[in-house]
C-alpha cells in the first residue's frame, strides 16, 4: 500500500468538506462538512503514525475525535440558540454586523 493513497483520499475529503462549508447555507450541513474535514485530518494522522511507526499519530487522532465531539456539541448549541432567536438556521441571513 502506498502512503499516498490514504493521504490523497484524506485530501479529497478535506476539500469536499471545505466545499461543503463554503457552499451550504444550512448550519447543520456546515457542521457535517466540518466533520468531513476533521476526519480527513484523522486519516492523515493515523496513516502517518503507521508510516513513521509512531503511536503519537493514533493518540493525536483520538484527541481530535474527543475535541471534535466537544466542538460539535458546542456548535449545535449555538445553532439551536440561533434558531430559537431567528427561527432559521440559514447562515446567509446571519449578517447583522458588517463593514
Amino acid at each position, binding site marked *: 500500500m502506498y502512503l499516498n493513497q490514504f493521504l490523497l483520499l484524506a485530501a479529497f475529503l478535506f476539500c469536499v468538506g471545505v466545499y461543503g*462549508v*463554503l457552499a451550504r*447555507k444550512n448550519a447543520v450541513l*456546515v457542521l457535517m462538512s466540518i466533520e468531513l474535514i476533521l476526519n480527513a485530518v484523522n486519516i492523515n494522522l493515523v496513516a502517518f503514525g503507521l508510516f513513521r511507526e509512531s503511536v503519537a499519530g493514533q493518540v493525536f487522532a483520538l484527541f481530535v475525535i474527543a475535541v471534535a465531539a466537544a466542538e460539535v456539541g458546542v456548535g449545535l448549541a449555538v445553532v439551536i440558540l440561533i434558531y430559537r432567536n431567528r427561527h432559521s438556521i440559514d*447562515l*446567509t441571513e*446571519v449578517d*447583522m454586523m*458588517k*463593514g
Partner: protein
Amino acid sequence: MLENAWVIPALPVLSFVLILFFGKRLPKHGHEIGVAAVALAFVLACVCAVQWVQRPANLEVKPGSEEHAAAPGSPAQANAVAALEEKAPPGSEGGHEGEGKGEKEGEAGEHEAEPIRKPVVKEVTWFDNGQTRVKAGTHVDGLAVTMMFVVTLISLLVHVFSTSYMHGDRRYTHYFAALSLFTAGMLVMVTANNTLQLLVGWELMGLCSFMLIGHWWEERNNSNAALKAFFTTRTGDVGLLIGIAILFFAAGQTFDIADINAAALGGEVSHGLVLAGAAALLCGVIGKSAQFPLHTWLPDAMAGPTPVSALIHAATMVVAGVYLVARLYGVFWSGFDIGGGGINPVALVGGITVLIAAALAFVQTDIKKVLAYSTVSQLGYMVMALGVGAWTAGVFHLVTHAFFKGLLFLGAGSVSHAVHSFDMKKDMGGLREHMPITFKTFVIGSLALAGVPPLAGFWSKDEILLGASSNGYPVFLVIGLLGAALTAAYMTRCVYLTFFGEYRGHGQPHESPPAITVPLVVLAALSVVAGFVNVPGGEWFAKWTENETVLSAGVAHHSFSPFVALFGSALGLLGIAAGYAYYWRNLGPHRLTQRSGAAGTGYRILENKYGLDRLYTDWVVGGIKGPIARGAYWFNQRVIDGVVNGVGIIARGLARFVYDTVDQKVVDGVVNGAGIGAEDGGRVLRLMQTGRVQQYALFLFGAVVVLGGTLVLFTTG
C-alpha cells in the same frame, strides 16, 4: 573727543528713547530734548572737527600714481600698492583699543609720500562668531568728521525749523522722536568702522524714513509712499547684504572697513570678487541714493513733512548711498577700475541720473517735487564724481549740496507754511514781496545749486567737472555740463513760478516766524561761504578729508582749470538766462509742446517720468499703491510708479497663485489626498466585510490557497 566719537550718535539715540517714553509729559512735548540733544551733538561734532584739523598729519601714505600722470593699471602702481600692503596685511590684529588702524605705517619710499592724519579708531568686541571676532567701534577720519558736522548741523536746523513748522501736529512728540532716531541712524553709519555697523545705521534710516514719510498715515497716499520708500530701498539692500557678505570673505573674514578697502586695493583678492562686491554694493547705493532706475520712491517721499524732506535730502538717507561709495572707495576703485577712465557703472548710473532727473524737474508743478528731482540729479552728480575718480569733489559736493538743498527745502517749507500748498502753478507766485527772507535765501540757494560763482555749488561742481575731464571721462564731462545748464534752468523756473508774477493762491501769505527763518539764514550763509574751504590754492577740505584709502588708491588731484570753471559757470548762467528769457521776458518757443509733435512727445515722456513708475507699479508692485492723479498725470503715475508697484502686482498675483493653487491645492492636496486615499482604501476594504460568515470562510480558504500555493510553488531553498 575723537576717541569718544560714539557719544555723538549716542546722544540722539538717547533723545529718541527719552522723547518716546517721556516726551508727551514734557511742557514742549518732547522737542526740547530733541533740540538739546542734537545741539549738543553738533557742538561735539564741531569739537571733533576742530580736533581733527589740529591733529598732526603724521601718517604717510604713498600715493599709488603720480599726479596728472595716471597711467592706469601701470606696473608701477600695482607694485607700489603691493609694497604698501605687505607692511600692513589686512585684518591685522592691531586695533584693540585706540588707534590700531593708525599703526599701518606706509613705507617711506623714494616716492613722494603725502602725510595725512591718522584715523582715530576705537573698538570693542561686539561678538565672536566662528573664527571671527567682530568689533564694534568708531572710525573717525576726515570724512567721518565732515559728515558728523554736516549731519548734526542740518539736523539741528531741521529740529529748530520743525518746532514751528510742525506746531500743533497730532503726533508732534513722535515726530521728534523719529527725527532724533533718523539723525542717530546717519551718525551711526558715518562713524561705523565696519560694514555691519554701517548696515545698522543704514537700515535704521530706512525705518525712520518709513516712519516720517508716512507721518500722516491716515491718508493712504502717505502710507503708500512710506511703503514704497522702504520697499524700494530694501530692494537695493539685497545688493548691500550680498556685497557685505562677499567683501567679508574677500577680505579674509572681516567686516572692518579699513581692512576691506586695503584688501580690495591690495590686489590679493581676485578682481572678479571685488568687482562682484562692488556691483552688489552699487545696487544698495542705487536704492538708497535714489539713482536711476530706483529713483522713483524719492519724489513720492515728499508725502512726509517738509523738514523731513530737508533732512532726508540734505544730510541723511539719500546721501548715505554716496557716503557708502566714498567710504568703501577702495572696493569701487579697484572693482570698477575707476582709475582707468572710459565708462564704468558707477559713473554711468550717476550720469544717467543727472540728466533724467534734471529733465523731470522741468515738468513738475509741485515745488517739493522740483527739489526732489533736483536732489536726484545732484546725487547723480556725486555718484558720477565718485565714479570718475573725483573722490574729493564728490564728497565736497555732498557737503555743499547739503547746505543749499537743505536751505531750498526749508525754504519750500516756509513757503508752504504760508500758502498751505506746494503747487507752484496754482497757489504761489509773487511771494517775494510777502516773504522777503524766504525769498532771498531761496534765491541764494538756487544760485548755489545752479553753480553760480562764487557760491558753494560752483566750487564743488567745478571740481567734479574737472575730475571728469582730467581722469579720462569726457562723456561725463559733457553730461555734467549739460546737467549744470539744466539745473540752472529749472531752478530759474522754480524761482519764477514761486516768487515772481502774480500771487495765485488764497488768503494773505506772510513771512514765517524766526524758528523758520533763522535756519534759512544760517544755511544761506553757509551756501555762500562753504565753497571756499576747498578753493584752489588752499584745498583744505581735501587735506582734511582724504584718507588712507583714497591716497593708496592713487586718486588723482588736479589743479584748478580755469577753462572748465569758466565753461561750467557759463553754462549755468546760460541756463539761468534761458529761464529768465522764457519766463520773465516771455521769449522763446512757448506752447512748443502743443505745436511740435516731437516736443510734445518729449514732454509727455517727462510727464510720464519715462514710464518707470508705471513699469514698477503695474508690472512689479501693483495695487499696493496708486496715488490719485488726474488726467494724463494719472496715466503717468501709473506708468512710472509701476516697477515697484508693478512688481507688487505680479508678486501678489504670483503669491495668490502659489497660495491658492500650489499650497492649498497641490501641497496640501497631496497630504489630504493621501488621507482621502486612506479613507477610500478603508471604504473598499470594508466592502469585504460583508457580514456573511461563509464569505469569510471563503476568504479564509482563498487566502490559504493563494498564500499556500505561492509559498510552496514560488519559494525555493
